[in-house]
């Protein structure tokens, strides 16, 4: 399982065009890192510090502001992750079906559950390296630049929330992407469908919401649903009604993920091994 994930990461790192996306993720991380450094280490007037923090949705104190910088960072990184996943699905999973590499894997001493777990772990690792680990290191940076233990005591929930939200992002995105790639296989159809799935239902939901004034239509937006789930973990909502929607979002995302997982298991049938 780990060897499948390791090889998948090697594949992604060997494709030079993906370095652009990885670079974008790194640039965003450096920007947030610099913000924390600026507000904690530089002698700036307090209003300037507040403006910078507000601009990036930052507050190490969870009760001070509506948003939390770590969640904002993860949401913004998700854009890079989604684009990276859209293009890497074909390389990581689609090629196994297209070039009949599945027999190579399944005829070894592994079962289809190991294969599926390996591929999910590979996609999850990409998400982990781009969202969760940088968010955690930002949390550590903020704490390291803050004198005293009070920061760690008061904000212990932040790393827990980062891990929980990151876990959801990893699980949901990996299952969706691997399933989609197993069926569509080629890069262009995967990228188009992946983008459409994340954007089109959201647009439709927004239109229906405005037309009917029913907030529940907004649940059609999977990206927003994942953000709501993130807000559920961080305990911070932009609107009070979002708290109710978050649980529906969780149920909806869980249902779609289960369906996608079942479809994936059916696709990776051992009977396809010798064609």
């Amino acid at each position, binding site marked *: 399982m780990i*060897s499948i994930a390791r090889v998948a990461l090697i594949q992604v790192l060997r494709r030079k065009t993906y370095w652009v996306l990885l670079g974008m993720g790194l640039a965003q991380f450096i920007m947030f890192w610099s913000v924390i450094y600026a507000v904690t280490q530089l002698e700036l007037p307090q209003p300037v510090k507040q403006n910078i923090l507000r601009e990036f949705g930052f507050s190490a104190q969870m009760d001070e502001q509506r948003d939390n910088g770590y969640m904002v960072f993860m949401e913004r990184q998700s854009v890079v992750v989604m684009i990276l996943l859209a293009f890497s699905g074909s*390389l990581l999973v689609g090629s196994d079906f297209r*070039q009949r*590499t599945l*027999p*190579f894997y399944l*005829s070894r001493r*592994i079962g289809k559950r190991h294969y599926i777990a390996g591929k999910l772990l590979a996609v999850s690792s990409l998400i982990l390296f781009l969202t969760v680990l940088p968010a955690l290191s930002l949390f550590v940076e903020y704490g390291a630049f803050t004198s005293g233990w009070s920061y760690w005591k008061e904000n212990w929930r932040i790393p827990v929330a980062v891990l929980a939200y990151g876990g959801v992002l990893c699980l949901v995105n990996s299952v969706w992407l691997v399933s989609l790639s197993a069926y569509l296989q080629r890069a262009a159809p995967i990228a188009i469908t992946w983008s459409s799935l994340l954007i089109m239902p959201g647009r439709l939901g927004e239109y229906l919401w405005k037309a009917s004034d029913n907030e529940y239509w907004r649940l059609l937006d999977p990206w927003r649903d994942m953000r709501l789930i993130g807000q559920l973990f961080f305990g911070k909502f932009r609107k009070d009604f979002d708290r109710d929607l978050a649980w529906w979002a969780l149920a909806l995302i869980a249902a779609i993920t289960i369906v996608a997982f079942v479809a994936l298991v059916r696709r990776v049938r*051992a009977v396809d091994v*010798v064609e």
Partner: protein
Amino acid sequence: MLTPLNQMSRKELSLVLLDLQKLSRHFGSVQALREVTLRLDTGTIGLVGNNGAGKSTLLKILLGLLPPSSGSGTILGCDIRQTGLQLRGRIGYMPEAAATVPLLKGVEYVALSGDLYGMPFRDARRRAHEVLNYVGLGELRYRRLDEYSAGNLQRLKLAAALVHDPELLLLDEPTNGLDPAGRMSMLRLLEDLIAETGKSLILCTHLLKDVERLCKQVVVLHQGTIAKSGPIEEMTRAAENRYEVHWRDANSDFLSRFCRSGGTVLHQGEVSEAMALVALPETWQARQLFELAAQCGTVVTRLREDDEDLERLFMRLTAKQTTGTQELTA
């Protein structure tokens, strides 16, 4: 009648590579394998059959990937119904398809295979270098897979199947898609491998010449059943008393009298004159066939020993059984 496994000595048991008892597999209404009973000793075995004969299904069952619908069996002493993962650890499988992992280097591909067979990472990596040298890809080990030629890719897949030193190699069309030179080179490599390591090998192919060259035993599958199995030498030796005979006057009772004398007509046809493939009675010589023709008032125009090779044997077996099936259907 096969001796039951529980009545065999330990030494005899160690020689049994696979033992299948009334093995069947169906997919819905399609019967892929019908009550296959087969025992093969360790060694080199060719598995041949037309498309749809049941080769793939049998391979899946042998790899422990597909349970049989009914029947039982063992391979390398493992129950095929219960020991899928354990079994695959003892078998090296070389798939027919390209089965490459994009952007990977040769040595990484083989090491990955070792990892997937359960070898520790360091051992897999070290062994990958060894087997790549063995199959003649030592110089190319750091090239990416998309830079390998078809011949080298086949060697690479062989290295990936050999990396964990399996007891049995299962090769699916190893010379498929290779040019004549590449094919010869691959066959030489396999011959050396068999000679040097003494590994058992099941070669699944459409190229019967490859089977003749590499294998001692053959299994001919046809329409889900075993049309014939056994040592190739014995099968072809059985053709020693067989002749292709041509004679004038197709209306004479030459053939019917030949049959009454104890001969067997294997195949009958007519080109420009009467022709038949016949098996003489055990006590007969070719001379007696001429005598019989003379008694029937006809002239044998041509007589030649039936030098049936595996290809002709295969054609005869599959053609005969197809005809038989058609007759039954009618």
